[in-house]
């Protein structure tokens, strides 16, 4: 080891900042897709570091399904104020009201898939040409094959068989007028890297990542929080459990884990000993083996 040594986390940070700057320099109107989850919070943190002391030179877009955890929305609004960022909220409800998106039926209707519609509508309205996402390649098999600069046509479609080769760290930002890019600066991070980085940098997170008591129902092996959007069947009942969340999605499909991890250190130990992937609790991914791939082809991030 020589004296010019950079730890893997610092290398990942440097890579992400390089990608964020490369995007801003090459496109006209980028936007950061901000879900309010830990990965997008880390993304906002990296964007802040990349351009300090200037403000983040692009808005944050939250595609709001209306099924969010209230704690996540509260956190989002506070954070945006604190870092003086520009937040745009796209409401899935608006797309439903307009008739461009149609609500699923059944005992736990998910609005996950509908996000793609609202997202593309926001793209049409604001004419963004690049969208940053906090997706990581370790999350899911289809994501493992997606480029960092992922080229999308005017419909937002991902064509896995026809991706541009990505060499060294030379990111090709050229495109036709109506096309855009999805850019994934933390592609090479793992769940553990994200948690370690959050601790290293002292990044604040919504409270529901930490253990708390909540009313939940066990459905298809997923612990769902009590909320107004799901209907219980006759043999289901809510019960109080000590839980936390590993990922933040809609209340209708994001599963909690039984956990008493109340600090970042506890969570890191829990992640280290976890035997299920973090998306293992996502009912939306369980629908079929190729669920994510299909959604991505439709324009999902």
């Amino acid at each position, binding site marked *: 080891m020589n004296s010019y040594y950079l730890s893997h986390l610092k290398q990942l940070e440097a890579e992400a900042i390089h990608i964020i700057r490369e995007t801003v320099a090459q496109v006209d109107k980028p936007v950061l897709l901000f879900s309010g989850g830990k990965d997008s919070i880390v993304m906002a943190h990296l964007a802040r570091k990349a351009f300090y002391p200037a403000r983040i030179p692009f808005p944050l877009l939250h595609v709001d399904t209306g099924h969010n955890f209230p704690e996540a929305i509260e956190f989002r609004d506070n954070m945006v104020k604190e870092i003086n960022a520009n937040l745009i909220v796209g409401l899935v409800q608006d797309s439903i009201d307009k008739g461009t998106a149609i609500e699923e039926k059944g005992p736990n209707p998910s609005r996950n898939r509908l996000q793609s519609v609202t997202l593309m509508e926001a793209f049409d309205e604001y004419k963004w040409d690049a969208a940053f996402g906090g997706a990581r390649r370790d999350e899911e098999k289809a994501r493992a094959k997606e480029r960092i600069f992922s080229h999308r046509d005017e419909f937002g479609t991902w064509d896995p068989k026809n991706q541009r080769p990505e*060499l060294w760290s030379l990111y090709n930002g050229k495109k036709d007028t109506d096309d855009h890019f999805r850019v994934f600066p933390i592609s090479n991070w793992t769940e553990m890297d994200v948690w370690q980085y959050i601790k290293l940098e002292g990044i604040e997170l919504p409270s529901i990542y930490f253990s708390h008591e909540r009313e939940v129902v066990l459905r298809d092996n997923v612990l769902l929080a009590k909320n107004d959007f799901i209907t219980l069947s006759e043999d289901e009942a809510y019960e109080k459990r000590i839980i936390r969340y590993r990922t933040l999605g809609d209340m209708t499909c994001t599963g909690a884990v039984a956990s008493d991890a109340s600090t970042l250190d506890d969570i890191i130990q829990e992640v280290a000993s976890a035997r299920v992937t973090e998306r293992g609790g996502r009912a939306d991914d369980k629908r079929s083996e190729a669920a994510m791939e299909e959604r991505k082809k439709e324009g999902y991030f």
Partner: protein
Amino acid sequence: MSNTIDNQAYLNMDLLRFTTAGSVDDGKSTLIGRLLYDSKSIFEDQMEALEKSSKQKGQDDVDLSLLTDGLKAEREQGITIDVAYRYFATPKRKFIIADTPGHIQYTRNMVTGASTANLAIILIDARHGVIEQTMRHSFIASLLQIKHIVVCVNKMDLVDYSQEAFEKIKEEYKKFSSRLDVPDIRFIPISALKGDNVVDKSEKMDWYEGSTLLYTLENVKIGNDLNFMDARFPVQYVIRPQIDEFRDFRGYAGRVEGGVFKAGDEVTILPSGFSSKIKTVELNGEAIEEAYPPMSVTMTLEDDIDVSRGDMIVKPNNQPESIQDVDIKICWLSNSPLKVGGKYALKHTTKDVRSSVKEILYKVDINTLHKIEDDKEVKLNDIARIRVRTNAPLFADSYSKNRQTGSVILIDEHTHETVAAGMIM
């Protein structure tokens, strides 16, 4: 990975990027599956999904290769389409695997995977020995200046773990590897299927005294693979806050691609040739004592001079070449052939220029490394040496001196596709 984690150790962990190459059915996916499985990087739900898919396909054992085949089309056809990236960590290092398929578009994919790798694993089927693809993969690793090759002789279980078989393949490989420009080549006899010498030492091959594959990956020294000598800072973006508190702030954002920069250093800006001194090296408002590859930082200068994206900050006594006639070795990545006289957009560090192809000097037979002088049509997956003329100078080093300031991509101006990967000679 053990079930508890030492935080401090995790923060000090090193990063190794490697690429895996092999031909069809030599067990590459199984090897990766094995590394992930034995290092406990496979989770229960992934394992359950694997068991389910294996059963559906009528296989008795869990098929570890299914773990790496990500797309629906691949699972249906049992093939791998594209470069996939995998991650695992041991208490010593974090690993990024660029998993490249061995068959279709092999060169294109392998070049892509190899461009960011510190190390290449070359797989050889113990029953078949060195084949054309083994040589091709090794040449590509050498061409991309990968400094470490680990040759894994796989499926040792199918040749009765025979030392003789292993030694024979080693000799065969050494016969042609003298032509490679790779300083560190090692050989390991393994069985990815049974797990011999992958993570755990094989009990069936006590004649092998070397280390296991995982131990090798954890301990190979990569600290000197970057260039810490020749200071290069391509400017990515100029930060101008436009807020009262930082009204006069002009920060140059970029990644250090070579050498070391610190406050007080005399610097020269290219192409203007103006000199100045570094006032601060910082990130997020925090001073950085020394900036070196591959750090992303923001620099400010003592003098108010015009610096923009595509410029390069260097040291006065150590400057890259400023060239407009560029001699490059390329790998052609597009279905439409290279056109002599054709115009292509060229990207080099943070600089975008236009280029025109002046001449195809020769093609390279990737199976033998011999020059081909009579056929000059450069098609998909071809390697060739060409000369281009750019409309503005590049501040370039040779690829062998610096992978970042020595590499370019060519982009079709109409389709915007990346059509070539180029290494400056």
